């Protein structure tokens, strides 16, 4: 299975948000999208998820059916109904009518434990910290049976331990799926994706394996800051400020 974004242009209120963007994300190859604020990352995810209709170009999924029933999209800041409990969110997000039954809970319980949300299932989502809330959303995304998982900023609000742990957990759960995520953290993208798309001003600047694509020059230019490069395990490259 393969998700293909083919030459997508998106205009909102006569402003060009995405300009001839193409990418292809394959099953089992985690795909990151990076780029500075306003570069069109979130808009691109919304087009892929079907929230926005592209002005021109197409999004298609080869080897799968109706996108509405196979895509699981987690926005950066879901505006869930005020006063909703964690367990209600999980049940609704996963469409598990039998969540409260003995049968299906066994499957999801382990996922909840991996993200440590099993301790506050009865809490009101709005009373959780933003990090805890994020873990609930990620647990649902990890537990979905849908075969295309799209997450805007998976590690937002998470501390270093949970950013890493969550990405590891997610990768394990989506290993047979199409998985696309955006991130502001180049190092998260470098560590946890096998394919990357670098965006700037609504255009694709570079695309390919992070090992090949990421360079001090490219990222310093795209983000407009001086960076220093380190090479980590497996040849993955990481970046810190030059001063």
């Amino acid at each position, binding site marked *: 299975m393969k998700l293909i974004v083919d030459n997508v242009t998106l205009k909102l209120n006569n402003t060009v948000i995405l300009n001839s963007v193409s990418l292809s994300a394959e099953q089992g190859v985690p795909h990151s999208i990076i780029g500075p604020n306003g570069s069109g990352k979130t808009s691109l995810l919304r087009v892929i*998820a079907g929230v926005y209709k592209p002005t021109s170009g197409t999004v298609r999924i080869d080897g799968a059916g109706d996108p509405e029933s196979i895509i699981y999209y987690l926005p950066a800041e*879901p505006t*869930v109904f005020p006063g909703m409990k964690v*367990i209600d969110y999980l049940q*609704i997000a996963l469409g598990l009518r039998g*969540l409260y039954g*003995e049968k299906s809970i066994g499957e999801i319980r382990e996922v909840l434990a991996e993200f440590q949300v099993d301790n506050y299932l009865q809490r009101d989502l709005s009373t959780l910290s933003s990090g805890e809330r994020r873990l609930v959303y990620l647990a649902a995304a990890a537990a979905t049976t849908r075969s295309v998982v799209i997450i805007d900023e998976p590690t937002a609000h998470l501390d270093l331990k949970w950013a890493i742990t969550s990405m590891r957990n997610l990768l394990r759960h989506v290993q047979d799926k199409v998985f696309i995520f955006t991130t502001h953290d180049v190092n998260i993208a470098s560590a946890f994706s096998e394919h990357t798309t670098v965006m700037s001003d609504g255009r694709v600047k570079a695309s390919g394996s992070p090992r090949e694509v990421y360079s001090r020059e490219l990222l310093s230019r795209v983000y407009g800051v001086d960076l220093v490069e380190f090479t980590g395990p497996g040849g993955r490259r990481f970046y810190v400020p030059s001063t």
Partner: protein
Amino acid sequence: MSAGEISKPIFLYKRNLLLTILAATALFILEIYIGPGRYPARQVTEALIHGRGPAATVILDIRLPRAIGAVLTGVILGISGLLLQVSLRNPLAEPYLLGVSGGASLGVMAALALAPSLGYMAMDIAGFIGALLAILLVILVGELTGYNVYSVILAGVAVGGMSASLAIIIYLAKLETHQLGILWIYGTLSLVGWSEALQLLVPALLALVYLAIYYSKFNLLLLGDEQAASMGVSPKALRRGMILVSTITVGMLTSYTGPIGFIGLMSPHIARMLVGSEVRRLSILTIPVAADLTLISDLLARNILPGEIPLGSMTALLGVPFFLYLLSRRPAET
């Protein structure tokens, strides 16, 4: 977390559903047995079973249709409150506080001032038009404030207050001798006889059928617009439909009962406290809870004073403390 602990909610849901339905049944029977006529229980039973005796007329032609009217009123207000809360993402929303009921009663009053002997259908339409104009004003404020929870409610209270004032003025100026008395202005079931109860079946069934068809989409709306849109729901169109159904049903209801507040606020909240937010369980439980609240309020309205208190005043007595509790509990979420 054990499997038993997790499966507790389904048990609680069924138990709560059973209890609220039993309560509604008991209250329905009380509504028939207890009333200002003070008939002994034996005579009421005789009237119910054999259709005769000194109480027969009052029981069969007044209390029975009124009790049925109370249940239908609860169904309409409860579902309408739920639809408004979910569609506007506003836990404080309900038809009365959003000015829908007030707008409907103004519509009915205005129509009667123009033509005092209107049929049911014309009254229903007048109620709906008034309700629609009121909600459109509130939605306008919502659009301008990004549907801020409190701005929308304040706008609704203001529109409702203005509508009520205009309705009273029209009533005093032109309709003081009309059969829709002062009780109706404040909300009452005293005008609901058999034909009115039958007419109320229409909005009640409309609300129930709409809910049954669309509840799974309402669920997605709870996750936020983006996630709903990614699952094939058009949040805007769905919202419009929900608000329209709520406005039609409450508009029609109000032409028979006048404005009745807070049932639509309290019922979904009490149901949510019992079974959580998932809309299928929530809406199924909201219905008997709303019937319970309407029957309790009407029993009190009919029996605590020698004369009848308007039902709308009774529901406000119960609902305002509940509203204040919700206000004090909620952090400023928008």
